[in-house]
Protein backbone atom coordinates (compact mmCIF):
# COMPACT_ATOMS: atom_id res chain seq x y z
CA UNK A 1 0.00 0.00 0.00
CA UNK A 2 1.45 3.38 -0.96
CA UNK A 3 1.99 5.87 1.90
CA UNK A 4 -0.83 8.23 0.85
CA UNK A 5 -3.39 5.41 0.70
CA UNK A 6 -2.16 4.00 3.98
CA UNK A 7 -2.43 7.42 5.60
CA UNK A 8 -5.99 7.87 4.31
CA UNK A 9 -6.95 4.36 5.44
CA UNK A 10 -5.65 5.02 8.91
CA UNK A 11 -7.52 8.33 8.99
CA UNK A 12 -10.73 6.52 8.10
CA UNK A 13 -10.08 3.81 10.67
CA UNK A 14 -9.40 6.47 13.25
CA UNK A 15 -12.64 8.25 12.36
CA UNK A 16 -14.60 5.01 12.52
CA UNK A 17 -12.99 4.16 15.79
CA UNK A 18 -13.88 7.55 17.27
CA UNK A 19 -17.50 6.67 16.64
CA UNK A 20 -17.21 3.12 17.84
CA UNK A 21 -15.37 3.48 21.12
CA UNK A 22 -16.93 0.83 23.27
CA UNK A 23 -17.92 1.21 26.88
CA UNK A 24 -16.58 -1.98 28.26
CA UNK A 25 -18.46 -3.81 30.98
CA UNK A 26 -16.25 -6.44 32.60
CA UNK A 27 -17.45 -9.94 31.88
CA UNK A 28 -19.69 -8.91 29.02
CA UNK A 29 -19.04 -8.48 25.32
CA UNK A 30 -18.49 -4.98 23.99
CA UNK A 31 -21.64 -2.96 23.43
CA UNK A 32 -22.17 0.00 21.20
CA UNK A 33 -24.47 2.96 21.46
CA UNK A 34 -27.24 3.15 18.92
CA UNK A 35 -25.95 4.54 15.64
CA UNK A 36 -22.28 3.90 16.28
CA UNK A 37 -20.38 2.00 13.66
CA UNK A 38 -19.24 -1.27 15.21
CA UNK A 39 -15.73 -1.29 13.80
CA UNK A 40 -13.58 -3.71 15.75
CA UNK A 41 -9.92 -3.89 14.97
CA UNK A 42 -8.16 -7.05 15.99
CA UNK A 43 -4.74 -8.65 15.78
CA UNK A 44 -1.96 -6.88 13.95
CA UNK A 45 -4.35 -4.26 12.61
CA UNK A 46 -5.31 -3.14 16.12
CA UNK A 47 -1.70 -3.04 17.23
CA UNK A 48 -0.63 -1.04 14.17
CA UNK A 49 -3.47 1.42 14.62
CA UNK A 50 -3.03 2.09 18.32
CA UNK A 51 0.73 2.29 18.53
CA UNK A 52 2.87 4.96 16.99
CA UNK A 53 6.17 3.14 17.36
CA UNK A 54 6.75 -0.54 18.08
CA UNK A 55 10.52 -0.46 18.11
CA UNK A 56 10.88 -1.24 21.83
CA UNK A 57 7.69 -3.27 22.14
CA UNK A 58 8.34 -6.32 19.98
CA UNK A 59 8.43 -8.57 23.05
CA UNK A 60 4.93 -7.37 23.98
CA UNK A 61 3.67 -7.92 20.43
CA UNK A 62 5.11 -11.46 20.45
CA UNK A 63 3.46 -12.14 23.80
CA UNK A 64 0.06 -10.85 22.64
CA UNK A 65 0.29 -12.93 19.47
CA UNK A 66 0.97 -16.04 21.56
CA UNK A 67 -2.29 -15.64 23.51
CA UNK A 68 -2.92 -15.27 27.23
CA UNK A 69 -4.90 -16.35 30.22
CA UNK A 70 -5.45 -14.53 33.49
CA UNK A 71 -3.22 -15.24 36.49
CA UNK A 72 -5.06 -12.87 38.82
CA UNK A 73 -5.98 -9.23 39.38
CA UNK A 74 -3.42 -6.85 40.86
CA UNK A 75 -4.36 -3.54 42.44
CA UNK A 76 -2.38 -0.71 40.85
CA UNK A 77 -4.14 2.56 41.42
CA UNK A 78 -7.82 3.32 41.45
CA UNK A 79 -9.68 0.05 40.97
CA UNK A 80 -12.89 1.84 40.03
CA UNK A 81 -11.13 3.40 37.07
CA UNK A 82 -8.89 0.59 35.94
CA UNK A 83 -8.62 -3.18 36.17
CA UNK A 84 -5.09 -4.50 36.10
CA UNK A 85 -4.59 -8.22 35.68
CA UNK A 86 -1.41 -10.25 35.60
CA UNK A 87 -1.52 -12.42 32.49
CA UNK A 88 0.34 -15.60 31.61
CA UNK A 89 1.24 -15.50 27.95
CA UNK A 90 1.72 -18.37 25.56
CA UNK A 91 5.40 -17.55 25.04
CA UNK A 92 6.09 -18.03 28.76
CA UNK A 93 6.13 -14.30 29.59
CA UNK A 94 4.05 -12.57 32.25
CA UNK A 95 2.72 -9.10 31.56
CA UNK A 96 0.07 -6.80 32.92
CA UNK A 97 -3.19 -6.37 31.06
CA UNK A 98 -4.88 -3.07 31.89
CA UNK A 99 -8.46 -2.19 31.07
CA UNK A 100 -9.66 1.36 31.56
CA UNK A 101 -13.26 1.70 32.68
CA UNK A 102 -15.96 4.33 32.51
CA UNK A 103 -16.74 7.14 30.11
CA UNK A 104 -13.12 8.44 30.18
CA UNK A 105 -11.67 5.04 29.38
CA UNK A 106 -10.21 6.00 26.07
CA UNK A 107 -8.82 9.30 27.30
CA UNK A 108 -7.26 7.61 30.30
CA UNK A 109 -5.77 4.91 28.08
CA UNK A 110 -4.21 7.68 25.96
CA UNK A 111 -2.83 9.24 29.12
CA UNK A 112 -1.43 5.93 30.32
CA UNK A 113 0.20 5.24 26.98
CA UNK A 114 1.66 8.72 26.52
CA UNK A 115 2.91 8.99 30.11
CA UNK A 116 4.87 5.79 29.50
CA UNK A 117 6.27 7.17 26.22
CA UNK A 118 7.19 10.44 27.91
CA UNK A 119 8.83 8.71 30.89
CA UNK A 120 10.89 6.39 28.74
CA UNK A 121 11.92 9.19 26.40
CA UNK A 122 13.49 11.07 29.33
CA UNK A 123 15.23 7.96 30.68
CA UNK A 124 12.82 6.85 33.41
CA UNK A 125 12.43 3.05 33.30
CA UNK A 126 8.62 3.06 33.23
CA UNK A 127 6.97 -0.07 31.86
CA UNK A 128 6.45 -0.13 28.11
CA UNK A 129 2.79 0.05 27.14
CA UNK A 130 1.42 -1.72 24.07
CA UNK A 131 -2.07 -0.47 23.31
CA UNK A 132 -4.26 -3.20 21.85
CA UNK A 133 -7.70 -1.57 21.95
CA UNK A 134 -9.26 1.83 22.72
CA UNK A 135 -9.48 0.96 26.40
CA UNK A 136 -6.92 -1.81 26.84
CA UNK A 137 -3.17 -2.26 26.93
CA UNK A 138 -0.52 -4.84 27.72
CA UNK A 139 2.58 -3.69 29.57
CA UNK A 140 5.74 -4.84 31.30
CA UNK A 141 5.42 -6.13 34.84
CA UNK A 142 7.84 -4.16 37.01
CA UNK A 143 9.47 -6.45 39.54
CA UNK A 144 8.87 -5.16 43.05
CA UNK A 145 6.19 -4.31 45.59
CA UNK A 146 4.13 -1.16 45.24
CA UNK A 147 4.54 1.59 47.83
CA UNK A 148 0.98 0.80 48.95
CA UNK A 149 2.08 -2.75 49.77
CA UNK A 150 5.15 -1.43 51.56
CA UNK A 151 2.94 0.85 53.65
CA UNK A 152 0.81 -2.10 54.72
CA UNK A 153 3.91 -4.10 55.51
CA UNK A 154 5.56 -1.38 57.61
CA UNK A 155 2.39 -0.56 59.53
CA UNK A 156 1.56 -4.24 59.78
CA UNK A 157 -2.01 -3.37 58.97
CA UNK A 158 -4.01 -4.25 55.85
CA UNK A 159 -5.92 -0.97 56.22
CA UNK A 160 -2.74 1.12 55.98
CA UNK A 161 -3.83 3.04 52.92
CA UNK A 162 -7.19 3.99 54.38
CA UNK A 163 -5.64 4.88 57.73
CA UNK A 164 -3.00 7.21 56.42
CA UNK A 165 -4.62 8.61 53.34
CA UNK A 166 -8.36 8.35 53.00
CA UNK A 167 -9.58 10.42 55.92
CA UNK A 168 -10.82 13.63 54.30
CA UNK A 169 -12.47 15.04 57.40
CA UNK A 170 -10.34 13.61 60.18
CA UNK A 171 -6.92 14.22 61.57
CA UNK A 172 -4.09 12.13 60.20
CA UNK A 173 -3.52 8.76 61.74
CA UNK A 174 -0.25 9.79 63.41
CA UNK A 175 -1.87 12.82 65.01
CA UNK A 176 -3.97 10.56 67.19
CA UNK A 177 -2.73 11.14 70.78
CA UNK A 178 -3.87 7.66 71.80
CA UNK A 179 -1.65 5.97 69.24
CA UNK A 180 0.33 3.09 70.76
CA UNK A 181 4.11 3.76 71.02
CA UNK A 182 4.88 0.73 68.85
CA UNK A 183 2.56 2.03 66.14
CA UNK A 184 4.15 5.48 66.38
CA UNK A 185 7.57 3.90 65.79
CA UNK A 186 6.17 2.12 62.74
CA UNK A 187 4.85 5.43 61.43
CA UNK A 188 8.19 7.10 61.94
CA UNK A 189 9.82 4.27 60.02
CA UNK A 190 7.24 4.72 57.27
CA UNK A 191 7.90 8.45 57.09
CA UNK A 192 11.66 7.91 56.98
CA UNK A 193 11.40 5.39 54.15
CA UNK A 194 9.00 7.64 52.31
CA UNK A 195 11.32 10.61 52.65
CA UNK A 196 14.24 8.50 51.36
CA UNK A 197 12.13 7.48 48.39
CA UNK A 198 11.06 11.03 47.53
CA UNK A 199 14.54 12.54 47.86
CA UNK A 200 16.34 9.80 45.92
CA UNK A 201 17.46 10.72 42.40
CA UNK A 202 14.80 8.38 41.00
CA UNK A 203 12.20 10.08 43.22
CA UNK A 204 13.11 13.56 41.99
CA UNK A 205 13.03 12.33 38.38
CA UNK A 206 9.57 10.95 39.07
CA UNK A 207 8.53 14.37 40.41
CA UNK A 208 9.67 15.97 37.17
CA UNK A 209 7.77 13.36 35.16
CA UNK A 210 4.63 13.94 37.24
CA UNK A 211 4.88 17.68 36.66
CA UNK A 212 5.39 17.28 32.91
CA UNK A 213 2.53 14.78 32.63
CA UNK A 214 0.18 16.72 34.92
CA UNK A 215 -0.01 13.93 37.49
CA UNK A 216 -0.64 16.05 40.54
CA UNK A 217 -1.34 13.35 43.10
CA UNK A 218 0.24 9.96 42.67
CA UNK A 219 -1.53 7.01 44.21
CA UNK A 220 0.78 4.78 46.25
CA UNK A 221 -0.41 1.83 44.17
CA UNK A 222 1.21 3.32 41.08
CA UNK A 223 4.69 3.48 42.58
CA UNK A 224 6.78 0.32 42.43
CA UNK A 225 9.94 -0.10 44.47
CA UNK A 226 11.95 -1.70 41.70
CA UNK A 227 15.42 -3.21 41.96
CA UNK A 228 17.06 0.06 40.77
CA UNK A 229 14.88 2.53 42.64
CA UNK A 230 11.38 3.77 42.50
CA UNK A 231 9.50 3.32 39.21
CA UNK A 232 6.24 4.92 38.10
CA UNK A 233 3.80 2.33 36.87
CA UNK A 234 0.80 2.98 34.71
CA UNK A 235 -2.70 3.76 35.80
CA UNK A 236 -2.34 7.29 37.08
CA UNK A 237 -4.36 9.76 35.06
CA UNK A 238 -2.29 12.59 33.67
CA UNK A 239 -2.82 15.92 31.96
CA UNK A 240 -5.07 18.65 33.21
CA UNK A 241 -8.72 17.71 33.02
CA UNK A 242 -8.60 14.61 35.12
CA UNK A 243 -6.46 15.99 37.91
CA UNK A 244 -8.39 19.18 38.63
CA UNK A 245 -11.04 17.50 40.74
CA UNK A 246 -8.54 15.74 42.99
CA UNK A 247 -6.58 18.92 43.64
CA UNK A 248 -9.80 20.72 44.39
CA UNK A 249 -10.70 18.36 47.20
CA UNK A 250 -7.45 19.09 48.98
CA UNK A 251 -6.52 22.65 48.19
CA UNK A 252 -9.47 24.77 47.25
CA UNK A 253 -11.85 24.22 50.10
CA UNK A 254 -12.44 27.60 51.72
CA UNK A 255 -11.09 27.71 55.25
CA UNK A 256 -12.04 31.25 56.12
CA UNK A 257 -15.59 32.57 56.31
CA UNK A 258 -16.52 34.10 52.99
CA UNK A 259 -17.81 37.68 53.36
CA UNK A 260 -21.51 37.87 52.70
CA UNK A 261 -21.99 34.12 52.72
CA UNK A 262 -23.93 32.77 55.67
CA UNK A 263 -23.62 29.07 56.29
CA UNK A 264 -26.77 27.10 57.06
CA UNK A 265 -27.29 26.35 60.75
CA UNK A 266 -25.17 23.44 61.90
CA UNK A 267 -22.80 23.51 58.95
CA UNK A 268 -19.12 24.17 59.59
CA UNK A 269 -16.37 25.08 57.22
CA UNK A 270 -14.14 22.13 56.49
CA UNK A 271 -10.73 22.91 57.90
CA UNK A 272 -8.24 21.34 55.55
CA UNK A 273 -5.25 23.12 57.02
CA UNK A 274 -3.92 19.92 58.57
CA UNK A 275 -3.73 18.54 55.04
CA UNK A 276 -1.40 21.23 53.84
CA UNK A 277 1.56 18.94 53.72
CA UNK A 278 4.37 21.04 52.41
CA UNK A 279 6.45 23.57 54.28
CA UNK A 280 8.13 25.51 51.41
CA UNK A 281 11.14 23.73 50.02
CA UNK A 282 10.80 20.62 52.10
CA UNK A 283 9.41 17.17 51.67
CA UNK A 284 5.87 16.68 52.87
CA UNK A 285 5.54 14.82 56.16
CA UNK A 286 2.63 12.71 54.97
CA UNK A 287 3.31 9.02 55.18
CA UNK A 288 1.87 8.26 51.77
CA UNK A 289 3.69 8.31 48.49
CA UNK A 290 1.54 11.31 47.63
CA UNK A 291 3.33 13.89 45.67
CA UNK A 292 6.75 13.37 44.21
CA UNK A 293 6.65 16.94 42.99
CA UNK A 294 6.67 18.30 46.55
CA UNK A 295 10.29 19.46 46.37
CA UNK A 296 9.63 21.21 43.04
CA UNK A 297 6.47 23.23 43.68
CA UNK A 298 4.50 24.38 46.69
CA UNK A 299 1.21 22.62 47.08
CA UNK A 300 -1.36 25.35 47.39
CA UNK A 301 0.21 28.15 45.36
CA UNK A 302 0.75 25.67 42.52
CA UNK A 303 -2.96 24.97 42.33
CA UNK A 304 -3.46 28.69 41.73
CA UNK A 305 -0.92 28.80 38.90
CA UNK A 306 2.30 29.70 40.72
CA UNK A 307 4.33 28.05 43.42
CA UNK A 308 7.41 27.03 41.46
CA UNK A 309 10.42 26.42 43.67
CA UNK A 310 14.05 26.41 42.65
CA UNK A 311 14.72 22.88 41.49
CA UNK A 312 17.82 20.68 41.23
CA UNK A 313 17.78 20.44 37.42
CA UNK A 314 20.82 21.72 35.54
CA UNK A 315 21.02 23.63 32.26
CA UNK A 316 22.17 20.39 30.60
CA UNK A 317 19.13 18.60 32.07
CA UNK A 318 16.80 21.22 30.63
CA UNK A 319 18.43 21.00 27.19
CA UNK A 320 18.14 17.21 27.30
CA UNK A 321 14.51 17.24 28.48
CA UNK A 322 13.57 19.74 25.77
CA UNK A 323 15.25 17.63 23.10
CA UNK A 324 13.53 14.45 24.33
CA UNK A 325 10.14 16.12 24.68
CA UNK A 326 10.40 17.44 21.12
CA UNK A 327 11.33 13.95 19.94
CA UNK A 328 8.27 12.51 21.72
CA UNK A 329 5.87 14.88 19.98
CA UNK A 330 4.90 12.47 17.15
CA UNK A 331 3.52 10.04 19.75
CA UNK A 332 1.20 12.78 21.04
CA UNK A 333 0.21 13.76 17.49
CA UNK A 334 -0.59 10.13 16.67
CA UNK A 335 -3.08 10.08 19.55
CA UNK A 336 -4.39 13.53 18.57
CA UNK A 337 -3.29 14.93 21.94
CA UNK A 338 -1.14 17.83 20.79
CA UNK A 339 -2.57 20.00 23.59
CA UNK A 340 -1.12 17.58 26.13
CA UNK A 341 2.28 17.93 24.52
CA UNK A 342 1.91 21.72 24.72
CA UNK A 343 0.96 21.41 28.40
CA UNK A 344 4.13 19.38 29.07
CA UNK A 345 6.19 21.85 27.05
CA UNK A 346 4.85 24.80 29.06
CA UNK A 347 5.64 23.03 32.31
CA UNK A 348 9.16 22.31 31.11
CA UNK A 349 9.57 26.04 30.42
CA UNK A 350 8.48 26.77 33.99
CA UNK A 351 10.92 24.18 35.36
CA UNK A 352 13.69 25.70 33.21
CA UNK A 353 13.08 29.13 34.73
CA UNK A 354 13.80 27.70 38.19
CA UNK A 355 16.59 25.24 37.36
CA UNK A 356 19.50 25.89 39.72
CA UNK A 357 21.11 22.45 40.00
CA UNK A 358 24.77 21.66 39.60
CA UNK A 359 24.66 17.86 39.23
CA UNK A 360 22.90 16.41 36.21
CA UNK A 361 19.85 14.29 37.01
CA UNK A 362 18.70 13.51 33.48
CA UNK A 363 21.36 14.51 30.96
CA UNK A 364 23.51 11.52 30.00
CA UNK A 365 27.07 11.94 31.20
CA UNK A 366 29.59 12.38 28.40
Amino acid sequence: MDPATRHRTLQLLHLADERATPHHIPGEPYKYKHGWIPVILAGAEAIATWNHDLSDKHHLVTAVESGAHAAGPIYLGDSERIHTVLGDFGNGAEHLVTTHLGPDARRNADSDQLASELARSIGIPAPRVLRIAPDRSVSDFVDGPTWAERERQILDDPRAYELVFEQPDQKWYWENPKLAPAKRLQLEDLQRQRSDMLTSDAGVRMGVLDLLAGIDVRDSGTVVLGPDGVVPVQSEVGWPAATAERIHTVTEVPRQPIPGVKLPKGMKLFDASHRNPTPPGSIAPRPTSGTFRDGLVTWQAFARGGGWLDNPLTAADITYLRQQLDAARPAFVARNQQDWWQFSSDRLDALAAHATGTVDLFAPTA
Partner: protein
Amino acid sequence: MARVDENGVEWLDLTDPVEAAKFDAQAAAMEPLTYADVVKRREARQAKAAAKPNGTAVQ
Protein backbone atom coordinates in the same frame (compact mmCIF):
# COMPACT_ATOMS: atom_id res chain seq x y z
CA MET B 1 -8.75 -16.78 17.65
CA ALA B 2 -8.02 -18.62 20.88
CA ARG B 3 -5.73 -21.60 20.53
CA VAL B 4 -5.53 -24.66 22.74
CA ASP B 5 -2.06 -26.11 23.31
CA GLU B 6 -1.04 -29.74 23.75
CA ASN B 7 -1.68 -29.50 27.52
CA GLY B 8 -5.25 -28.40 26.91
CA VAL B 9 -4.55 -24.80 28.01
CA GLU B 10 -6.56 -22.19 26.12
CA TRP B 11 -4.64 -19.06 25.07
CA LEU B 12 -6.91 -16.10 24.41
CA ASP B 13 -6.41 -13.43 21.78
CA LEU B 14 -6.62 -10.22 23.81
CA THR B 15 -7.06 -8.07 20.72
CA ASP B 16 -10.39 -9.77 20.12
CA PRO B 17 -13.02 -8.05 22.31
CA VAL B 18 -14.96 -11.25 22.98
CA GLU B 19 -11.88 -13.20 24.04
CA ALA B 20 -10.63 -10.22 26.05
CA ALA B 21 -13.97 -10.25 27.91
CA LYS B 22 -13.37 -13.93 28.64
CA PHE B 23 -9.96 -12.98 30.05
CA ASP B 24 -11.67 -10.40 32.30
CA ALA B 25 -14.16 -13.02 33.47
CA GLN B 26 -11.28 -15.36 34.38
CA ALA B 27 -9.62 -12.59 36.38
CA ALA B 28 -12.86 -11.61 38.13
CA ALA B 29 -13.14 -15.14 39.50
CA MET B 30 -9.65 -15.03 41.02
CA GLU B 31 -8.19 -13.70 44.25
CA PRO B 32 -6.15 -10.49 43.93
CA LEU B 33 -2.38 -10.98 43.84
CA THR B 34 0.18 -9.14 45.94
CA TYR B 35 3.79 -8.90 44.89
CA ALA B 36 4.62 -11.65 47.40
CA ASP B 37 2.05 -13.88 45.64
CA VAL B 38 3.65 -13.13 42.28
CA VAL B 39 7.08 -14.11 43.63
CA LYS B 40 5.70 -17.32 45.15
CA ARG B 41 3.98 -18.16 41.93
CA ARG B 42 7.14 -17.57 39.92
CA GLU B 43 9.17 -19.75 42.29
CA ALA B 44 6.61 -22.52 42.00
CA ARG B 45 6.81 -22.38 38.22
CA GLN B 46 10.59 -22.46 38.29
CA ALA B 47 10.57 -25.44 40.66
CA LYS B 48 8.11 -27.23 38.42
CA ALA B 49 10.25 -26.50 35.37
CA ALA B 50 13.38 -27.73 37.14
CA ALA B 51 11.58 -30.97 38.04
CA LYS B 52 10.86 -31.69 34.39
CA PRO B 53 13.56 -33.74 32.65
CA ASN B 54 13.91 -31.34 29.71
CA GLY B 55 13.63 -28.21 31.91
CA THR B 56 10.75 -26.69 29.96
CA ALA B 57 8.34 -24.50 31.84
CA VAL B 58 4.88 -25.84 32.56
CA GLN B 59 2.01 -23.42 32.78
